């Protein structure tokens, strides 16, 4: 009951005309950048971080949340019609969705993606509403040592467990943690890794890293091979209305997708890709006609799309209750909280109920707006896709420059941006994931802070991490998360060799 009352208060905040306006702006902008290949929610929110200096916190987070949800919807349109995923979490959608579009069933593919996103997004938001207060109660028992171990677990899962190349993921993470260390150490006042540059005393701005990796790196990547720039849009054919058969095949997939996506998103591991893969695999297993998979099976769009949106809601659970970001976008949103001087964590819901519940209520409204924005107006978004590539990427780099140059009007920042862009290009070339860089950069300094708190309380006794049961189990999980996939792969290989 308490939760419902708080949610009601949240709706009063979110339904204020000004906040509705921010929400509408957010979901529109989010769909727009989601549709555009090469632009994602993390990059967009990073570019808009200066807004935190001029707009009040509730409005800013309603805007950011709209962008976050909107990009998920928009990304599926690009996957289906262009076969270039607009967003990494919609790679799977392209598998069946693009085949459907090629077969003249683009309309139903877009419809099942949009309605599935709505159903799962709403279910996920319901999950967030009722799970978050419970997690907060658990989190209040967390001491600094437990927090530190939880962060170690998150580090391992986001970089090693979920990717296909654990070594590369961990290297990306370590690089990110190092970037986060640059600047004056707030606890001791010592400058670290500033190389004598005054510009680096305040640390490296996360905007620069995000824009460098995602905008500059992506542009260099597309420039380096001509074949990457070839793409053609499949025109939308087929009615946007789902037939009775489509409905019958879609809705169980939506519910299963939501059931997979939300819990995985809510674990301190995050990542929207894994639930979409799992959902695809499950739908294929359960399909009455598995032979349709690979040739445009509607369940293969409905399930993963639902999983993707439900996991987006799930990621907000550790984000809002523990201050633990498990995706690049969540990490950027966390830095927006820091910019307001707010520390997300178990106390956030108590100290900022207007903000948190207004944000959650705006997610329900945003989902509804997105359904309206994406189904009848899908033709408009298809036209966005026809922006010529030369103008699109030239424009992205102009935005990248303004986002960076506006921070301090220093060419050093621009040089840093391009250097990080070059690193991002190399990472892309060699299959290093980039999200762990952003997560390491934001979460690294917080982990250091908890490490210090824990060891100050224990007077330097390292065993505190192993004697507290919670901390010890989290570290054990981290160890498992690091080595289990390795052992699993070895086991599979041995079985294959034996069989």
């Amino acid at each position, binding site marked *: 009951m308490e939760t419902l009352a708080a949610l009601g208060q949240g709706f009063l905040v979110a339904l204020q005309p000004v906040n509705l306006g921010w929400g509408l702006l957010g979901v529109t902008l989010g769909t727009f950048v989601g549709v555009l290949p090469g632009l994602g929610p993390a990059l967009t929110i990073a570019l808009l971080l200066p807004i935190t200096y001029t707009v009040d916190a509730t409005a800013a987070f309603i805007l950011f949340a709209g962008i976050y949800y909107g990009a998920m919807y928009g990304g599926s349109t690009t996957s289906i019609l262009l076969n270039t995923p607009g967003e990494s979490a919609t790679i799977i959608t392209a598998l069946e969705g693009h085949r459907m579009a090629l077969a003249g069933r683009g309309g139903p593919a877009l419809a099942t993606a949009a309605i599935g996103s709505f159903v799962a997004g709403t279910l996920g938001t319901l999950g967030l509403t009722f799970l978050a207060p419970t997690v907060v109660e658990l989190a209040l028992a967390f001491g600094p040592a437990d927090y530190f171990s939880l962060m170690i677990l998150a580090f391992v899962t986001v970089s090693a467990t979920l990717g296909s190349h654990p070594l590369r993921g961990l*290297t990306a993470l370590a690089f990110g943690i190092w970037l986060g260390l640059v600047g004056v150490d707030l606890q001791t006042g010592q400058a670290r890794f500033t190389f004598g540059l005054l510009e680096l005393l305040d640390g490296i701005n996360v905007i620069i890293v995000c824009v460098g990796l995602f905008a500059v790196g992506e542009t260099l990547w597309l420039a380096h091979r001509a074949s990457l720039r070839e793409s053609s849009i499949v025109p939308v054919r087929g009615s946007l209305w789902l037939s009775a058969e489509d409905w019958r095949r879609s809705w169980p997939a939506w519910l299963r997708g939501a059931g997979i996506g939300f819990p995985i998103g809510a674990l301190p591991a995050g990542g929207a890709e894994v639930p979409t893969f799992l959902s695809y695999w499950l739908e294929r297993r359960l399909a009455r006609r598995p032979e349709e998979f690979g040739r445009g099976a509607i369940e293969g769009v409905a399930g993963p799309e639902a999983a993707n949106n439900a996991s987006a809601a799930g990621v907000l659970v550790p984000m809002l209750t523990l201050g633990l970001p498990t995706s690049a976008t969540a990490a950027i949103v966390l830095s927006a909280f820091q910019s307001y001087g707010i520390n997300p964590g178990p106390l956030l819901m108590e100290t900022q109920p207007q903000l948190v519940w207004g944000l959650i209520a705006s997610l329900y409204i945003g989902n509804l707006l997105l359904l309206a924005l994406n189904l009848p107006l899908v033709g408009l978004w298809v036209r966005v896709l026809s922006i010529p590539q*030369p103008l699109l990427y030239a424009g992205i780099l*102009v935005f990248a420059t303004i986002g960076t140059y506006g921070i301090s009007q220093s*060419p050093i920042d621009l040089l840093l941006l391009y250097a990080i862009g070059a690193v991002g290009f190399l990472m892309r*070339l060699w299959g290093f994931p980039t999200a762990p860089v952003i997560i390491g950069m934001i979460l690294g300094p917080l982990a250091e802070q908890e490490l210090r708190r824990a060891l100050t309380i224990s007077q330097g006794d390292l065993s505190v991490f192993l004697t507290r049961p919670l901390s010890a189990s989290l570290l054990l999980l981290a160890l498992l998360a690091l080595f289990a996939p390795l052992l699993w792969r070895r086991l599979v290989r041995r079985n294959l060799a034996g069989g």
Partner: protein
Amino acid sequence: MAGRGRGGAIALAAGVLALALVVAFGAARIPHSAYAVVGPRVVPFAVAALLGGLGLLLLAQALAGQLVPEESFAGEPLDRRALGWVAGGLVLNVALIQPLGFVLASTLLFVCVARGFGSARPARDAGIGLVLALAVFLAFSRLLGVRFGGGLVEDLVGLVP
């Protein structure tokens, strides 16, 4: 292309090891006192050690031929022309942004990148780039309150209230 074969993989692993050394030396140069329980050097040294370990493992993978690029682009040549225009545009931008101001430098960047991505109409691109840079400049400076310093176009716009 040599950069993508085994030699490239070894160079990549060596780069990670070099980064580990940079971090280790940087960490050693951080002033510290015995006062704090966890001084400012503890986490930096831990990161250096982590990078060093990962670099060695990557090197082992590279030597075993297991560190391979994500996509192979069999036989397709590197698009030097496109990369050159994009990289050139970025370098020009950083060199000219202070003397010319954000709007003009960005217009130039726009033309170069569009050219690299295959546009054959530089005059049209310059027009679109100018309008976009101006619009972005006005949005960020007037709505978000971001400052951009001076410049030819910026000063002219500044005369308009």
